[in-house]
């Protein structure tokens, strides 16, 4: 097979309903990968990045959500991007490497030369074609996207050391207690099919060990219950750590943005990062207006075509407004995500907040937060169908679905 025919497949790990609990209350209504950032489902951003990979044959979403939760999205995105996208449901969590291995026959169906593996809950510019080029130059089994972060925050992630000349991965450790390196794993990889052999190796080793224990003592039996099952293989601890320094794994450093999307607060920040990226990739998705015929727009704003925004409203920066939302006269929206079917009435203000589906915000009311993306209540979140009555102020709070607020609240979680 010639170089030009080399096929590439991409696998995006989307997780499942028992994961992503930190994304509540928004994940009570929608699988986290489908939560919109910059007006597009979270998983749409890596998918559309995959579209830029030459010779892309197939995109697989792997997770343990029910098939029907992804069915509609998968069929519409396949048509839209003209790339086959399939959802593969795991019967249980297998770890990121285990999940990949679980579906190796399907993934290898097209006989791809390279396999991308992406985590759905990272937000970055996904420089996939550039990574693939680098990976081919290195000639290893896998290449990891890395980024430099501050020394203080590095320990929240997988820290790694790479050779400054060859970019070979020399050392890898997941969430270390002491500082190892300020380069971290971005959760975006490209592999050759050899990765399956590597995963199989870990899996069978583990099986042997488990069998050994089962044969030995009562004490070992107890510890065996704590050990992961043989088909659960993590990519970081089980593959990256042992294969570091063996000329198998290499790194590709991105100079762009990168964030992990664990909490609703982070999703607001990531929505802003994707909106900013639209300036370069899809300027047509950004709204404009000066208040004459349509609303005044400040900075990066995405408004769904079916949303109605009054010309006297002022929107932005970092605002995305989803389908069928109605934004009344004199409304001010700053740094917020307005979900489907929300109604915001005259002169209301929304600032550093996510307003859940079909919620309603009354006249002169105010939904706001300090905007600290890391703080638990740094962004105000209204769940589905929350009603904020006229003139009420909601500050630094999380409101679960179907609540009505008729008095002001501050620093509260309302169940």
């Amino acid at each position, binding site marked *: 097979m010639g170089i030009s025919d080399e096929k590439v497949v991409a696998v995006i790990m989307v997780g499942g309903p028992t994961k992503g609990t930190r994304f509540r209350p928004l994940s009570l209504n929608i699988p986290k990968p489908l939560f919109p950032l910059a007006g597009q489902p979270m998983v749409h951003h890596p998918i559309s990045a995959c579209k830029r990979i030459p010779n892309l044959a197939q995109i697989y979403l792997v997770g343990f959500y029910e098939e029907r939760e992804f069915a509609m999205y998968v069929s519409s995105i396949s048509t839209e991007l003209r790339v086959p996208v399939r959802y593969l449901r795991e019967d249980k969590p297998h770890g990121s490497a285990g999940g990949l291995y679980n579906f190796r026959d399907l993934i290898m169906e097209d006989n791809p030369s390279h396999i991308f593996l992406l985590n759905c809950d990272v937000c970055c510019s996904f420089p996939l074609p550039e990574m693939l080029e680098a990976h081919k130059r290195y000639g290893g089994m896998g290449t990891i996207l890395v980024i430099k972060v501050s020394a203080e925050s590095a320990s929240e992630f997988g820290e790694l050391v790479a050779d400054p000349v060859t970019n070979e991965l020399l050392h890898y450790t997941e969430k270390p207690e002491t500082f190892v390196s300020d380069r971290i794993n971005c959760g975006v990889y490209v592999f050759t099919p050899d990765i399956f052999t590597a995963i199989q190796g870990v899996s069978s080793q583990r099986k042997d060990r488990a069998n050994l224990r089962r044969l030995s003592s009562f004490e070992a039996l107890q510890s065996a219950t704590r050990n992961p099952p043989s088909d659960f293989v993590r990519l970081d601890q089980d593959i990256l750590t042992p294969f570091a320094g063996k000329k198998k794994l290499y790194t590709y450093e991105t100079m762009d943005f990168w964030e992990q999307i664990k909490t609703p607060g982070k999703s607001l920040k990531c929505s802003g990062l994707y909106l900013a990226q639209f300036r370069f990739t899809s300027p047509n998705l950004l709204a404009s207006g000066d208040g004459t015929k349509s609303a005044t727009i400040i900075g990066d704003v995405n408004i769904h075509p079916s949303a109605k925004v009054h010309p*006297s409203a*002022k929107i932005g920066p970092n605002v995305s407004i989803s389908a069928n939302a109605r934004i009344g*006269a*004199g409304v*001010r929206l*700053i740094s917020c995500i307005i979900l489907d079917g929300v109604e915001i009435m*005259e*002169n209301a*203000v929304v*600032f550093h907040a996510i307003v859940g589906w079909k919620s309603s915000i009354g*006249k*002169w009311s*105010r939904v*706001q937060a*300090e905007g600290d993306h890391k703080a638990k209540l740094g962004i105000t979140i209204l769940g589905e169908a929350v009603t904020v009555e006229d*003139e009420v*102020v909601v*500050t*630094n709070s999380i409101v679960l679905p179907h609540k009505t607020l008729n008095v002001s609240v*501050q620093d509260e979680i309302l169940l």
Partner: protein
Amino acid sequence: MKALILVGGFGTRLRPLTLSVPKPLVEFANKPMILHQIEALKAVGVTEVVLAINYQPEVMLNFLKEFETKLGITITCSQETEPLGTAGPLALARDKLVDESGEPFFVLNSDVISEYPFKEMIEFHKAHGGEASIMVTKVDEPSKYGVVVMEESTGQVDKFVEKPKLFVGNKINAGIYLLNPSVLDRIELRPTSIEKEVFPKIAAEKKLYAMVLPGFWMDIGQPRDYITGLRLYLDSLRKKASPKLATGPNVVGNVLVHETAKIGEGCLIGPDVAIGPGCVVESGVRLSRCTVMRGVRIKKHACISSSIIGWHSTVGQWARVENMTILGEDVHVCDEIYSNGGVVLPHKEIKSSILKPEIVM
């Protein structure tokens, strides 16, 4: 007839407003507090008002000069060089209060707002024939105040009980007195209290009578009570069907809008709002339970409740000002800012939100 108004000192409780003007000149319902009293005194025939004051008498007199001629009333100051309590100032102003007529004179506490039923008080005083009359008002929590224990049918005062732990009555001293000149003979020129030292002696001689104040009463010496006082005052205007109250589709409840103020489209104003002269309220603004002093601009879509906006301040677009926010003179709240109970000293610019009540120096 003559009257003495106890103005007192710095008005610290009504700061930051009183950092800009003496407390009696702070507007209440678009009129300096003291003018409410002076006008009511004039209406029952008082010809001379003495202000007992120990701070900035020049400012006060300069301001009141134009009202002297307008109202045809003489206003003078009696300046304490040291604080003389509530009775000492009477001794100090003795020469101004006493003349050959031998008529009783009024003494008012300048912080008190009410319907000033002076006419009824004069009749009451004449009828009982005692030496002194005081107004009392009914309160819900008498334990916070000095309670006046009186004989209900005649009004004859038995005694004063300061902050009683057990219920002895629910009528408290309202700070409005009508006194015969002879009362002055009981007061020495030294720091002394009329409630604690003078009245108990007159009461002991059964020459002190109390009249229950009809209508509302409020000590508006601090911001929270100032805002409550405005509600009570506007309620009383409503009962009198006063033409001063604003009407229109954008008005709810009782609202005063100065004739030179401008209100934009799509606003909702009220209840219990006073908007001063020269104010500009732009479109889409919501105002409730607040006072907006002279020369203020409230920009589009702002929302203000339970607050006082000091002279020549501005509140930015989409700003929210609430929960006993008090803006001093010339304070500028930037666009989209939230103030929850911010107390802001004069000449400040507020660029970041105030989430919990605090003082901005």
